[in-house]
């Protein structure tokens, strides 16, 4: 049976759109994997000696064990965002003579071979070897390594439980971030010291190897719970059922002020509000807006004026970037319908333009408190906002004509690369690098004032040429219409 499953998956993988997706993304992922493997190996071999050098008084083995809590917490959060339960297309299997339990066990078993479980081995095993080399007792090391392997698997299965429980909440990553944050804080402020609980637990197991039954038991319970959740999901009605949410309708009457683009603006706003994928651009707004706080309070960035333009572009343009890069792919699932309707393409694009420009203005206004860190910052943000409105909006819309990837609006958003192609990377150049480069160069060669003037000037030119640019962009959209319709009707 497993042979069949593996065969199916092999085909699913190599015949999927994924495989045909941009080579660049795959190379990037491969590079990341390699990078992490090397990092972990280096850590596994090196950490013992580094700790020994830094803290000659304490036993590195004990120190590492003491830090395990942070690793577990970090691993759990990271997995939440990056690791998905391996999915099988189960629907066609349900009516075939295959036991449900077989399918479930296979899916769960397969998850144990995930890269996230392999990666820690690259650190744990070398560290174990180093310990042996340094004269620790074989028993101790062996039990320690086994315990850690169990913990890796426990985290693996715990993650799926958390994912399945929090997938029902509308912003699904809030619970995990909240819980992890609370645990971290409790530990950090020594209210409950999880670090020492965990390290003394592991030390206890080492002293009394029979205690290894405890993590094994936990693992079994988690596995059973996963099994139970998954099995109950193996009925197609359960996945259909909780999808239906009551629609909340709103008039959005204020959009009327924008005249003939009102219907499209309403559509875009509803798109943002009612679809998982699109909705995820909204929490990003907060991150973008507060982005400056990572830099400005720190003295080391205080005199780095060239950063102002970058942060300005990013924090006033976060919505523009997130929303704009997928124009018109947001509308891909009903693009055919739009194309057979009676409207001018210009209106459609103008709605997107208005929405993006509005967001820039609003984000700039919300960012005015940055003036606290210096008036220069505010001025740089203003120039960046003008540049965003004048240049970046048009760049985004023009870049959209190269979009050939459908977006499935219902899918979860975090680290979802669907719809991403080379376009999104290339577009980043005029979007971020050019303004930042020009600003930094002029700032360095001449002065801050001229750099601001040039950035603002470029933005203003864009605004003046708006109508002309729109016509060019619209023509380009009309020209690639058939290609887009064809690309958007391909299922991924």
């Amino acid at each position: 049976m497993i042979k069949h499953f593996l065969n199916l998956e092999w085909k699913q993988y190599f015949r999927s759109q994924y495989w045909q997706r941009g080579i660049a993304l795959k190379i990037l992922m491969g590079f990341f994997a390699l990078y992490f493997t090397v990092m972990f190996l280096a850590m596994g071999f090196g950490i013992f000696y580094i700790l020994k050098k830094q803290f000659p008084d304490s036993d590195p083995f004990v120190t590492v064990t003491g830090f395990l809590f942070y690793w577990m917490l970090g691993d759990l959060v990271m997995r939440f965002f990056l690791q998905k339960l391996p999915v099988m297309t189960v629907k066609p299997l349900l009516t075939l003579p295959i036991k449900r339990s077989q399918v479930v066990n296979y899916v769960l078993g397969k998850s144990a071979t995930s890269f996230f479980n392999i990666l820690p081995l690259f650190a744990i095993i070398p560290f174990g070897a180093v310990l042996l080399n340094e004269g620790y007792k074989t028993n101790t090391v062996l039990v320690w390594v086994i315990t850690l392997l169990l913990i890796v698997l426990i985290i693996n299965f715990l993650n799926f439980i958390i994912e399945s429980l929090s997938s029902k909440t509308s912003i699904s990553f809030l619970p995990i971030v909240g819980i992890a944050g609370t645990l971290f804080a409790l530990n950090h402020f020594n209210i409950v010291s999880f670090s020492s609980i965990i390290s003394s637990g592991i030390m206890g197991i080492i002293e009394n190897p029979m205690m290894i039954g405890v993590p094994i038991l936990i693992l079994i319970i988690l596995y059973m719970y996963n099994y139970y959740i998954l099995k109950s999901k193996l009925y197609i009605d359960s996945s259909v059922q909780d999808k239906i949410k009551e629609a909340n309708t709103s008039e959005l009457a204020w959009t009327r002020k924008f005249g003939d683009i009102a219907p499209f603006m309403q559509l875009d706003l509803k798109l943002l509000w009612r679809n998982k994928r699109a909705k995820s651009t909204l929490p990003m707004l907060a991150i973008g807006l507060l982005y400056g706080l990572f830099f400005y309070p720190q003295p080391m960035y205080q005199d780095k004026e060239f950063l102002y333009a970058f942060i300005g572009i990013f924090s006033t343009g976060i919505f523009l970037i997130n929303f704009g890069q997928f124009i018109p792919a947001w509308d891909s699932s009903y693009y055919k319908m739009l194309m057979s309707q009676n409207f001018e393409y210009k209106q459609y694009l103008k709605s997107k333009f208005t929405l993006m420009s509005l967001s820039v203005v609003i984000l700039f206004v919300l960012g005015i408190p940055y003036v606290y860190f210096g008036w220069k910052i505010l001025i740089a943000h203003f120039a960046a906002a003008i540049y965003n409105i004048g240049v970046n909006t048009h760049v985004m819309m023009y870049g959209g004509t190269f979009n050939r990837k459908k977006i499935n609006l219902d899918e979860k958003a975090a680290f979802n690369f669907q719809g991403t192609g080379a376009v999104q990377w290339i577009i980043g150049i005029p979007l971020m690098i050019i303004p930042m480069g020009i600003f930094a160069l002029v700032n360095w060669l001449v002065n801050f004032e001229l750099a601001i003037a040039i950035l603002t000037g470029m933005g203003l030119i864009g605004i003046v040429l708006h109508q002309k640019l729109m016509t060019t962009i619209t023509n380009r959209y009309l020209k690639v219409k058939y290609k887009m319709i064809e690309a958007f009707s391909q299922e991924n």
Partner: protein
Amino acid sequence: MIHTTEITKKYGKTTVLTIDNLEIPKGQSLGLVGNNGAGKTTFFNLLLDLIKPTTGKITTNGIQVNTSEDWKNFTGSFIDESFLIGYLTPEEYFYFVGELRGQNKADIDAFVKQFEEIFNDEILGKKKYLRDLSKGNQKKAGIIAALIGNPEVVILDEPFANLDPTTQIRLKQMLKELVENKDITVLISSHDLGHVTEVCERIVVLEKGIVIKDLKTSEATLKELEAHFAL
């Protein structure tokens, strides 16, 4: 109303549609039948300028569809679910389409009211998004939306498929009334020979992209079609 001249559509080397000359006069109701892959949807897609013809041209009302967009003013269509905007409620969808076709909310409310029977209380006021409706109900919403704004040309691809028997009968009734209006040209494709011969006054049979029969509907048409497809 609709003139098709020397149209062909090729994908690579395979020709999927060749229609030398097909004239559809104003007010006619035309049924397009043919097995899977006969070219029905391709023809509709060409008519709606969703794909580009390899050669030839289609004009409706004297407007060549792939050079001007003015035909959109008077053409309503529903090809498949990709014509629906999943995250809108049916009402919002009707208002949206209505707005593009110059109808205000009150117009749409009045318009939609006539279809209460077809909707069977499952579509309006249910506070459900279109993506959460059943396939059949989605189809109903799409078909009704195609009729918004008094179109002169209505194009429906497989309107009867996926509908329950009651709705099929009601839809048939509705379409019959629609084709009696001699200002509206209706194009329907269907696999249901019975329904399509009942609704349409002219039947065109496509096979592998070629028109092989062009019949004026009469008592004998259904028999003839059944005999043809039984082979």
